[in-house]
Each structure stands twice: as C-alpha cells, then as structure tokens.
C-alpha cells in the first residue's frame, strides 16, 4: 500500500510543481481524473516478465519508467501492445479514455477496457492528473527506441508473441 501511495505521489509530483506556476495563470493547466483498475492474477507472470526485462535496460529508472498497454481486439483474440513510458509524458488528450493499475511498484497505463469481464476490473478509486496545456510538436521520424512487447490473449491465456527491449 505504501508503494502505491508513493507511485501516486510520483504521478502528482510534476503536478505539484505545475500548481505553483498555475497560481500565476490558471488558464495554463487542466486536471484529469484517471480511474484505477485492478489487474487479474492471470497477468502477474506477464507483468513480472516485462518488469524484469525493463530492469535490464541501462536507461531504466524505476521511479520514472512505467508502461502503457494498448489493446487491439480481433474476433478470436486480443493483442496487447506493451511499451515503456515516462509518466511525465502522458498525453492530456488521452485522459478521458485511459485508466491505470499498479503492480509491483510500477504504474501501467491502459485503455479503459470495453469488455468488463476481462483481465481488468474497475475500482472506485481515481487519481488526479494535472497537465500543462501546450501545443504538441508534430514532427515524426522513425523512432523505435525504448522497449515493446506484444502479448496475445486467447482462450484465457496470454502468450508472448514478440519483444524488443532496451533500444537506444
């Protein structure tokens, strides 16, 4: 429980700084409520593997590096794309459709699941995320840095399909 409280504090750490600035100009910041989910035990092994993989990266910082999970649903299976991320970089425009859960001291940002009887169940908890309003730069280039994992959920089991970790 202490770990969870600590991680939420990390999420809000940058926000505390932002609050100080926002006193001068409240128009500059928005706040978002992010719902918390509970993750099914069936995914614990996968999450352990991902955390262990990421711990091998020389750039890994347990206080900043977290993970996103993006779901792609097909008729017979669901693909789950995991990627490492920095909590400070969460996109404010996505806040209405994302949730989070905490496992083994790491924060996982997920799409709010469409299927309520799946690996993630809603809780009554939320956390407040405060983000600076800013115009994002739309300059795209080939960027495969960081770590990525693809897991496939089928017949109530989750299997690793591919991974690419610690790319600098």
């Amino acid at each position, binding site marked *: 429980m202490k770990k969870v409280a600590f991680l939420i504090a990390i999420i809000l750490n940058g926000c505390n700084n932002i609050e100080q600035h926002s006193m001068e100009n409240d128009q500059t910041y928005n706040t978002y409520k992010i719902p918390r989910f509970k993750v099914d035990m069936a995914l614990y092994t996968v999450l352990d593997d991902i955390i262990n993989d990421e711990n091998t990266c020389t750039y890994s910082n347990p206080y900043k590096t977290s993970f996103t999970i993006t779901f792609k649903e097909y008729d017979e299976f669901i693909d789950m794309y995991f990627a490492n991320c920095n909590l400070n970089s969460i996109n404010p425009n996505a806040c209405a459709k994302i949730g989070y859960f905490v496992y083994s001291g790491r924060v996982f940002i997920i799409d709010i699941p469409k299927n309520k009887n799946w690996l993630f169940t809603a809780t009554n908890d939320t956390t407040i995320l405060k983000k600076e309003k800013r115009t994002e730069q739309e300059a795209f280039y080939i960027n495969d840095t960081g770590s*990525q994992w693809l897991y496939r959920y089928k017949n109530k089991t989750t299997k690793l399909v591919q991974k690419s970790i610690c790319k600098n």
Partner: protein
Amino acid sequence: MLFTSAQSTNDYYPFSTDPNMEIGRTSVGKTEGDGGLNINTTSKNAGQQAGSAYVAAYCIRNNFILRSNDHSHPGYGDYTTFPSGFDYDKTKKPGDMQFAGSIEAKFPNATFRIYSPATKEYYYSSFGPEPPPVNIH
C-alpha cells in the same frame, strides 16, 4: 547512399540484417527501375533513424513523389515485426505508425515495410500491421 530503384532492391537486404543499426530506404520519383531513386539512410544506432524523415520532408515540401519507405528492426534475437507507435495516443511519443501517417497525408498510395533480421518484410500503415498489397486485374 543513393541507388537507382533497379539496383537497390537486392542491395538493401544485407543492410537490413545489421543488428546494431536501423537502416531506412525511401523510394522516390515517379517510376521504379532506372527512372526512380532509392535513398538508404541510417543514424548509426539500433533504435532510431532520422534520415527517412529528412527525405520525406524534402519530398513533401517539393512535391516530389514518395513511393515507399522501408526500415529495419534490428536485434540479436529479440526484435519486433510490428510498427512502433501504438502508444502514441497515450504518450505522444511518435513511432512508425505516425511517421507513415504523416506521409500518407500527402502520398496516400505510399507503402511502408519493416524488415526483420531474417530479411522478411512486413507491411504496415498508419493503422498498424497490414497484409501485403494485392494487384487486382
């Protein structure tokens, strides 16, 4: 490196298997074969490759047709054949899919491929992995 389209197709494969270097190849010009150009680029690291973006930006600014962009996903054993960028909505960290989208906006017929160390090619677009294009006669 500059190649004519006819030269480059086979020349690209050895480059794409280097586990330490991500390599890009951008095909530009109206026609394939000797009438077109393939431009191979690398940033000399395994995780990113800026040269393709410069070539794409040049094509977009100068209305010079960009037909396709390929790049490798290098690795010693762990590598992915799917495009990066699935987490863009959440983190704003652009990946392969967003790069494809920025080109598709100007060149909707452009194709995009990832080459794995096994020299197999995988098509993708701004929406994610795609099956190879099919010619209908």
